[in-house]
């Protein structure tokens, strides 16, 4: 399908939800839902998306949707998938009429890196057929911008503030993608709403994969990262151009993970001069402002650049 055909599809996420103006999450979710082509059930963990789209008595979901708690969206998906399989096996039950049921689970970085990791790991090990979309805005945004395992090094959050003694988060972002790939699931990919067709295609790949698929979306948050509300996609693009968040896919085939870089990151791999310095990214977000004012913290910026460089190199070793 091309852009015009996708644009003509009805919106499965209705307008009128309470997410912030410029929110990266809803753009990402709207694009994910454009990949829906078969009967689908969606489940979501507690977080910005969940509370803002289902403020009783309103709902924005024009798909069957369930939320139960914060740490268990992968278990939610497991239950739905199991019920469907049982009904198909029995040949009766309300969902037995569908040849296939697509299940999409949305969770934030909080509900994935930290509290949700147990349920996610269990669901992946059991091999349930669903797509897990990680909406990574790099902090517990819904409860007030507290740090999570997905918060990047040196970022200021309300529980890792930039203070006189400690300049933001001291720990590096947990390498969640590697943890997921180590579960040897059929499909893992990174996406950004700055590249809509790439995102939709990858979600389609995930839905078509037999077994669990994991799609990691970097979701810039104007409120939490502190940038003007119209720069959301600019931030997403910058994250890719600085190789802080490269775009790639990984399929597990014949006992090995096979990585392939997506076009925006592949161009940089082929043309290293296109790689932008991390300072450009850090400078444009309020959560890193303590690295520039009252004085420039070149020591930390250098650490971040080195950290990003080494992770990028590790990816290239695997992907090229």
């Amino acid at each position, binding site marked *: 399908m091309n852009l015009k055909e996708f644009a003509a599809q009805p919106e499965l996420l209705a307008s009128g939800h309470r997410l912030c103006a410029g929110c990266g999450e809803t753009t990402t979710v709207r694009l994910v839902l454009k990949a829906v082509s078969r*009967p*689908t*059930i969606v*489940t979501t963990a507690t977080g910005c998306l*969940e*509370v803002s789209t*289902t*403020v*009783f*008595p*309103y*709902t924005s*979901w*024009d*798909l*069957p*949707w*369930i*939320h*139960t*708690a914060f*740490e*268990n969206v*992968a*278990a*939610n*998906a*497991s*239950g*739905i998938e*199991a*019920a*469907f*399989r*049982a*009904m198909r*096996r*029995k040949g*009766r*039950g*309300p*969902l037995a009429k*569908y040849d296939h*049921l697509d299940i999409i689970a949305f969770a934030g970085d909080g509900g994935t890196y930290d509290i949700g990791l*147990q*349920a996610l*790991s*269990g669901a992946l*090990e*059991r091999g349930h057929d669903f797509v897990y979309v990680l909406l990574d805005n790099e902090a517990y945004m819904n409860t007030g911008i507290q740090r999570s395992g997905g918060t990047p090094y040196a970022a200021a959050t309300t529980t890792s503030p930039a203070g006189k003694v400690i300049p933001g988060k001291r720990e590096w972002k947990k390498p969640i993608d590697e943890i997921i790939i180590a579960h040897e699931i059929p499909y893992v990919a990174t996406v950004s709403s700055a590249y809509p067709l790439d995102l939709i295609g990858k979600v389609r790949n995930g839905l078509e994969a037999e077994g669990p698929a994991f799609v990691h979306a970097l979701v810039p948050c104007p409120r939490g990262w502190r940038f003007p509300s119209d720069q959301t996609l600019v931030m997403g693009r910058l994250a890719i151009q600085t190789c802080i968040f490269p775009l790639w896919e990984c399929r597990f085939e014949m006992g090995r993970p096979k990585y392939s870089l997506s076009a925006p990151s592949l161009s940089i791999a082929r043309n290293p001069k296109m790689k932008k310095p991390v300072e450009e990214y850090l400078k444009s977000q309020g959560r890193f402002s303590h690295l520039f004012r009252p004085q420039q913290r070149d020591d930390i910026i250098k650490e971040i650049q080195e950290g990003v460089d080494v992770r990028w190199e590790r990816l290239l070793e695997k992907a090229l």
Partner: protein
Amino acid sequence: MVLVVQKLMGLNGDEAVAYALKQINPDVVSAYPITPQTIIVERFSEYVANGEVETEFIAVESEHSALTACITAEAAGGRAFTCTAANGLAFMWEMTYIAASLRLPVVMAVANRALSAPLNIHGDHSDSMGTRDSGWIQLYCENSQEAYDTVIQAWRIGEHPEVQLPVMVCLDGFILSHTLENVMTLPDEVVKDFVGERVFSKVRGHIGEVEYRLDPEHPLTMGSMDLYDFYFEHKRQQADAMEKALPVIGEVGEEYGRISGRTYGLVDPYRLEDAEIAVVGLGSTMGTAKAVVDQLRSEGMKAGLLRIRAFRPFPTEAVIGTLSHVKSVGVLDRAMSFGALGGPLFNEVRNTFYDASRRPLISDYAYGLGGRDMSMDLLGKVFRSLEENREAGKVSEPVRYIGLRE
């Protein structure tokens, strides 16, 4: 008159639950092992591996996920079962509230076991008592026969259109779960007929009146967010459903009785009609107590007992109706509520009688914690103290501990 030919089988409580489940053939069983429930999951796994059921068995990675998967399987329109005990139930505590408020009739067997710390694998009621406010229907079984019978009835009770609540079937850990008993089992088709197919209520969603389940043909949103303007009303609805469950438990129990010859209700009174002293309690100890009552009766004492089967919803009317003429009542509590005056059952029973026109003397006897045995001798002691209270016309000590080394 028993209409159906039943098969006598040697089963312990866990096996009886697993066997009933096999006959029901639910869509999903998702469970995590914990002593003393392990035999249920093991036996059921054998049925699955041998193709004797069509159930999808999810070997979940924690109890929290076990109940979660049951909730969403029921939401998807299937029948789902889980089982646990003690700290497993404590781990899924959050989800018990969610199952009840999402009005999904999950059935869960709890092999009652003490909560840590210290770690104790033996039977007492502290685990299920910890979830008594969650909105689940809680039924306590006296023996493995009742465990078998109640697991079958649980689906009809929970799925009833006026009720729509999850049901907890409680059986004492080790005492019932691991003890071999004679159990009369119904034929497969009779169980299937009794349980029937799940029927769904119609609900008004944002796209119209649809069945209360997830289906791509009719989008519904389950698990929304309430602000202060709606939460209270949603909770009131749950309280209403609990009240509606009271007659349903009796109706289903009677229908079951017509088929099996074993009728069940909210309470199980034993030699109470002319009793002057009586004990009230839950679970297997009441079986022992029945033997003690018989013994005391033969000695001329007017003893009786009331076994409460449905702890939630609490059968206030039935309790008043059967006990108000008794002079001295002893409540047997196999759980403690630290900081309260007496245990959970004591608090319910005393509260029940506060406005009644005739009130017995009511005293509390904490017993059996962590699997401490409650022998016939100890029960005899309880009755004797009830007799003392009756003669004195007042309760000497409202809360006592039976079988405790001082």
